[in-house]
């Protein structure tokens, strides 16, 4: 995935885009349908999500997110924009400084962690896995999330520590 995105970013390679599309478009479509889109609307939205991936490829930083995470955030924003017809307030950009190529070690570390997280979620007991899916696919409201006791937040707690370490590390370099 990282390699496909690199080819999109550096070579503007359309065949890499097609491969990325074949992997993510059906997942993004499923996400949008679960968010209440009808199939036609979902496909229109999928096109825009995937086109954003292409146009914004230069902003993707593999030391901060997996490709799936990045696509998830684009799909979520598009959902708010197109389906809920709302603006999405976004936090201030961090001052990362002049963008150098990300540290290869950071990239490998982050991508390994992401793969482990995907495995850990797949391995959860079904009830918990379904709950996590519902929460992140936007099928639970804020108050419903607060009421859920079965959400395996332990997995997330250790991720937060790692994300914080990574954030500090990245900011130290600027």
């Amino acid at each position, binding site marked *: 995935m990282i390699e496909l995105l690199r080819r999109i970013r550096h070579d503007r390679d359309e065949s890499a885009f097609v491969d990325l599309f074949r992997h993510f*478009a059906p997942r993004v479509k499923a996400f949008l349908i679960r968010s209440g889109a009808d199939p036609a609307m979902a496909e229109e939205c999928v096109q825009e999500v995937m086109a954003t991936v292409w146009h914004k490829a230069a902003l993707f930083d593999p030391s901060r997110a997996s490709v799936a995470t990045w*696509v998830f955030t684009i799909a979520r924003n598009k959902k708010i924009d197109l389906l809920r017809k709302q603006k999405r307030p976004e936090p201030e950009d961090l001052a990362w400084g002049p963008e150098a190529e990300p540290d290869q070690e950071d990239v490998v570390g982050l991508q390994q962690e*992401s793969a482990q997280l995907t495995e850990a979620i797949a391995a959860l007991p079904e009830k918990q896995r379904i709950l996590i899916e519902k929460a992140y696919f936007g099928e639970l409201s804020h108050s419903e999330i607060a009421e859920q006791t079965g959400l395996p937040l332990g*997995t997330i707690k250790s991720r937060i520590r790692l994300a914080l370490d990574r954030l500090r590390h990245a*900011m130290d370099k600027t």
Partner: protein
Amino acid sequence: MTMTIRHHLTDELIMAYSAGTLPEAVSLAVATHLSLCDECRAALQAHEAVGGSVLEGSDPVAVSDACLKGALALIRTAPAPDPVRPAPDPVLPAPLQDYVGGSLSDVAWRSAGMGVRQAVLKTEDSATARLLYIPAGMEMPDHGHRGMELTLVLQGAFRDAGGYFGRGDIEIAFEDTQHTPVAEGSVDCICLAVTDAPLKFSGLLPRLAQPFLKI
């Protein structure tokens, strides 16, 4: 940009923000706090990583060839340019600047009496966001909430039963919270206040309080 934040977002709010289910006004408060708080920003990144893993592991739904064709057409056309964010403001983080349309001096304040000023920001209406300007030393009326109220300090500080709240701190109050915030220190207090239901005032105060806050 790193500062001492004592009062953070809850996990539930960060999770709901990462899932994109919060009302626009609540998202605005979350995005503003995230702009000032590295710890919550890291938590958001972690939640988004979970979102990515859920997306990766989810059951796909077949996509038509026409959809791929449409996407290819889109990538061959130039995208609409991104809106340019205004120059940074020392009080208002970028997400608030987007709603104010510039800097603190562009806020369309309206007097709410007794030196208090407020400006309602335009969002969809399932929750309301307003900037409040409270002179140092001023006490706000005692009030409870039907829903949730988020109060994020941008300048100065206030204190109530929940503790001391300085720049970047966010107070999250629910139905059972009765509180009487007092603007502390010598600097006037500027806050972002977000409610997802109208406030209710206790005792003799409603008649005084309603015109005071114009709600």
